[in-house]
């Protein structure tokens, strides 16, 4: 039988690049498997929810489940969209793989959720530990004022305090901020040794880093520590301004492994401007999980069995060895400390330290 997979993401609107990242990656994975999972034809249906839009997402998922009779769902960039489908997939027993949405407790909302991305707790706790190890005792957090930012701030403060450091100021920057100069001035005035930053992708990253440099924070020795701020998607736009920025994150396109090279190559084969970053690797591994679930159920529609199989998975991802935590159904993975460097004219996130496998520290039950 043909296996149907519904992928929901923003394919239009300001976040449409996520849709493209998903699609390139999903298609690349399918192509790498010859279009078949365990001998079954795979058909992927893409649906556009245009951005954070839970009620629309729910209707799309409902349609995919009821009308198109999909066996698996995947995608989801934003937390509320994923939350919106939780009751549906529980009712219809549809295994659903989250490629990105990063709030810890989503997987609690339905036993049919699996997540192949990361959570803010997962990457922030190692970052806080590293900062402490570097001798930092006074840090500032500067996060964009929305749920993931608040997660990042809470995680950093909790871990850093536990280690005996002090977060002297916690700045929340409105999501609509374009002028970062005031925040950067506040960081400078706080007298901290470094700043832990969380920003959503795109223009704010550029704006913040520009302000960070222009207002002399780098010169003053206030170190920058972040997570996805130097994301490959617009890394090249930073120019020299990004050199030396440090981030703790689970994936770098420069990860040195055969699996990663294969992944990057598969993407290139799919589309010449395809980009390997956290979203595309999330989608790639998400498809890998669906692949495994199809094999485990022999292509039959059995959500419970599929999830049962997925709980025990571990495999070699482009980001390194990963496994699914049976309790949280969230991926356990290595987190790396990366530094932006120039290599062959391009900027890359060079992994300089491997913190080893990290669970989702944010999952409370």
């Amino acid at each position: 039988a043909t296996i149907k997979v519904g992928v929901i993401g923003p394919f239009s609107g300001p976040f449409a690049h996520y849709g493209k990242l998903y699609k390139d990656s999903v298609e690349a994975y399918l192509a790498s498997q010859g279009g078949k999972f365990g001998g079954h034809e795979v058909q992927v249906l893409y649906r556009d929810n245009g951005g954070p839009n839970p009620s629309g997402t729910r209707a799309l998922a409902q349609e995919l489940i009821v009308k198109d009779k999909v066996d698996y769902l995947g995608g989801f960039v934003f937390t509320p969209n994923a939350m919106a489908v939780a009751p549906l997939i529980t009712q219809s027993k549809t295994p659903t793989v989250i490629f990105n949405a990063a709030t810890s407790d989503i997987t609690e909302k339905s036993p049919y959720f699996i997540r192949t991305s990361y959570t803010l707790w997962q990457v922030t706790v190692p970052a806080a530990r590293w900062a402490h190890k570097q001798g930092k005792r006074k840090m500032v957090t500067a996060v964009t004022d929305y749920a993931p930012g608040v997660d990042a701030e809470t995680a950093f403060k909790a871990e850093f305090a536990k280690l005996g450091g002090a977060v002297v100021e916690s700045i929340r920057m409105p999501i609509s901020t374009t002028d970062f100069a005031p925040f950067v001035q506040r960081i400078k005035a706080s007298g901290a040794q470094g700043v832990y930053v969380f920003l959503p992708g795109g223009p704010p990253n550029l704006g913040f880093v520009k302000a960070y440099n222009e207002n002399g924070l780098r010169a003053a020795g206030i170190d920058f520590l972040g997570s996805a701020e130097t994301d490959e998607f617009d890394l090249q736009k930073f120019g020299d301004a990004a050199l030396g920025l440090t981030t703790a994150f689970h994936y770098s396109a420069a990860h040195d492994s055969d699996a990663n090279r294969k992944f990057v190559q598969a993407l290139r084969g799919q589309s010449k401007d395809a980009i390997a970053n956290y979203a595309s690797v999330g989608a790639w591994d998400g498809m890998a999980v669906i692949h495994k679930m199809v094999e485990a159920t022999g292509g039959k529609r059995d959500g419970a069995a599929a999830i049962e199989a997925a709980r025990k998975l571990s495999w070699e991802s482009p980001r390194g060895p990963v496994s699914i935590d049976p309790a949280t159904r969230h991926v356990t993975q290595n987190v790396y400390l990366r530094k932006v460097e120039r290599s062959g004219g391009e900027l890359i996130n060079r992994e300089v330290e491997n913190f080893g496998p990290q669970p989702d520290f944010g999952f409370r039950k």
Partner: protein
Amino acid sequence: MNRAGIERALAPSSPLRHCVVIAGIGLCGLLLPDQWPLLARIAVMALFVLSLDLVVGIAGLATLGHVAFFGMGAYAAGIVALRWTADPLLGLAAGAAAGAATAAVSGLLVLRYQGFTFLMLTVAVAQILHSLANKLRGWTGGDDGLSGFAIDPVLGVAPFDLEGKVAYLYALAVLVGSYHVVKHIVDSPFGLSVRGIHQCRPRMPALGTPVARQLWKIYVIAGLFAGMAGAVSAQISGIVGLDSLGFSLSAEALVMLILGGAGRLYGALVGAAIFMVLHHTASSINPYHWLFVIGGLLMVIVLVPRESLASWLRAIPRPWANGARAGRREAA
């Protein structure tokens, strides 16, 4: 033309007839079992755009902040379901009350102004509520959305099902009921005076019409129905996101309204249906090009004379468009 003829030409059409037509078309939707979720969303948007028509088309106040009432209604229904009762009708009432209350309070401020100033003030009100909803995470869930509430069966007998049939019928029933009330209001002496204010605001006080009070009333009524739309949306999707207070929902609703024709009520339903179906189709074919489609459509709508584009819509007359034309012919 004699008096009776003129009166006939000017007589408003019957609310009941409109409602039967709408309900009839709506029930035909039951034949499309796969599309119920979409149809339910169309019904919700149609209700929202209908309430927008009261403000924009009838009272002549261009607003881009109507979403404030929708969002407040949605959050009210969600919070009520999460904390107090899962009964859908009580939630609906709470949503209506929240929408009306928001309109009542904000109307006191914004209705004192006109035109562009009014427009921007409505934007400000919606943006402020958006900021507050984001800030009050404990109540609203912030940008993770307010979720985790379940809704009891409608009237205790019809549980919301996976296929979305009950959700659709529920939304349709609320839409048709609201349309009936709205149509009555628009064709009443009250509605007439609001339209008078629309067309010639400075003149109305001299006719003994308390402009501020009438506008406030219509604003509150619009808020009530927008709140109901929000509540239904929250109940059938089981989640309320910050997007239900977002600027783009206001803008989209305005586009739908003008697409269908402002000031005629049924235009709101037509506009919402066209827009949503188009969006749905376009995004399952090639979502990347949705903006080309909608952008091009908007421009065409404006450039092509609306008479030829929508003459078939005139089958259902606007209360006096026909009369005026008939009278003209008579005079010529």
